[in-house]
């Protein structure tokens, strides 16, 4: 059976946030709730060498939603059983069962579960399962103008791209995400997220 996963080419993303906006538009999610977020990671600096200056400044973007992990920590910690996983790997949240304790939000290293304060419960990316079931791509993938975001079978994506690490994403073993990456320059851990106020609200 197909196990769905995302591929994100961080070397191609321009940070336009079309994916984030398309997702919000489709879900009609309220202010502050972003199932997909674009993180801006920056680093490097200027160094004087004799009379000259050298710079290794870099910046890249990470478009991240729920990665529908093989070991979903949100599902593991949720006390009510509101979070479940389909056979194709898609992790779903039943808002009617959620008590709004926000424990999944604490635990998820991707910030995927998002709290909807007015409704008093968590929400999260559902991989646009209704689109998938109709044979169409998730909305964020369809919206990406640079084709930096893609999706497909996890085994195929892993064979094609391998388990690349991009800072500050956690080690794959933590939750085994269904996310495969093409690393940009500077992805080795020297950068830091620069738009905290935007992505954490």
């Amino acid at each position, binding site marked *: 059976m197909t196990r769905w996963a995302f591929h994100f080419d961080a070397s191609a993303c321009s940070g336009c946030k079309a994916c984030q906006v398309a997702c919000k538009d489709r879900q009609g999610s309220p202010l502050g709730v972003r199932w997909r977020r674009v993180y801006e990671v920056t680093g490097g600096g200027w160094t004087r060498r004799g009379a000259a200056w050298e710079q290794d400044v870099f910046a890249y973007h990470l478009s991240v939603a729920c990665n529908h992990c093989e070991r979903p920590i949100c599902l593991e910690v949720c006390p009510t059983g509101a979070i479940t996983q389909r056979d194709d790997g898609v992790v779903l949240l039943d808002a009617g069962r959620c008590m709004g304790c926000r424990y999944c939000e*604490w*635990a998820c290293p991707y910030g995927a579960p998002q709290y909807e304060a007015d409704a008093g419960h968590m929400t999260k990316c559902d991989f646009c399962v209704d689109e998938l079931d109709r044979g169409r791509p998730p909305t964020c993938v369809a919206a990406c103008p640079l084709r930096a975001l893609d999706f497909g079978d996890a085994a195929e994506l892993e064979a094609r791209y391998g388990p690349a690490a991009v800072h*500050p994403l956690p080690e794959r073993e933590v939750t085994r995400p269904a996310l495969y990456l093409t690393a940009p320059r500077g992805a080795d851990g020297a950068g830091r997220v620069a738009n905290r106020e935007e992505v954490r609200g």
Partner: protein
Amino acid sequence: MKARSLVAFTVLGQTAVGLFWAQAMAGWAVSGGDAWLRGPLLLAGALMLAAGLAALLHLGTPRNAWRALGNLRTSWLSREVALGGAFIVGWAVTVLARGARSPALAAGASVLTALAGAGLVYAMARVYRLRTVPAWDTRLTTASFFLTAASSGALAAAFALGSATSSTGGTQAAGVVRALVAVGVVALAVELGAEAAWRARRRAAHELVDAGLNPHADSDRVARWRVGLLGAGLLSSALLWLGAAGVAPVSVSRAGVTLAFLIVIAAGVVGRDRFYANYARRGL
């Protein structure tokens, strides 16, 4: 992270468990103490019920709280709720059995409730030992929760017994108060000693998270308050104990025990507030 209701839940819940242990051990150590141990026993239940109410305030949809037993297989939060429920049920049976003068049932219920309380404090700690939150994922979390139960529980019991002894004037009760204050002194000394380990752990954990997403939250001012309150709690408890032992010219007055208890609770609240402020997860 805004966590006032969780600070209240954990500190009150751990105090309730420590208080139950203290009165149970006093009951086993001293025969015929059921009458003057009624105060501490009732206070333990009241504190646990208050803790439960505080926990409900944290929820976005409290009407779904009953579903919290739905994932006992993997969720420590689910187990925490189950053990909290077991503690309350056990406490109620203990109260009823003592009221009905059924010592065998009271003793059995008391043992099971004390065990449920230990399980509850352990589950409370495991809730926070998330592999994605390095500042919390340490044995220090577990140790800290049990130390809070021991120190604040022992002094809460001494505080509650202060009322009983003033009316009954029992020398047995006075001896129990002295022993409880001694337990408080030891637990507070260990808590104070563990502060350096906590600070080192927080610094090391901060290296494991993104500095852009997680500005350093460990404030020196709050740390000084925590150490100051622990020190004041330790000093006041130690003076009370030395006074009770006849070494220092201090009497074990109700006011003194109350003051020590309030200082220790304040130290617990400040420490727990800082614990939540240090939340920072791996990744994004």
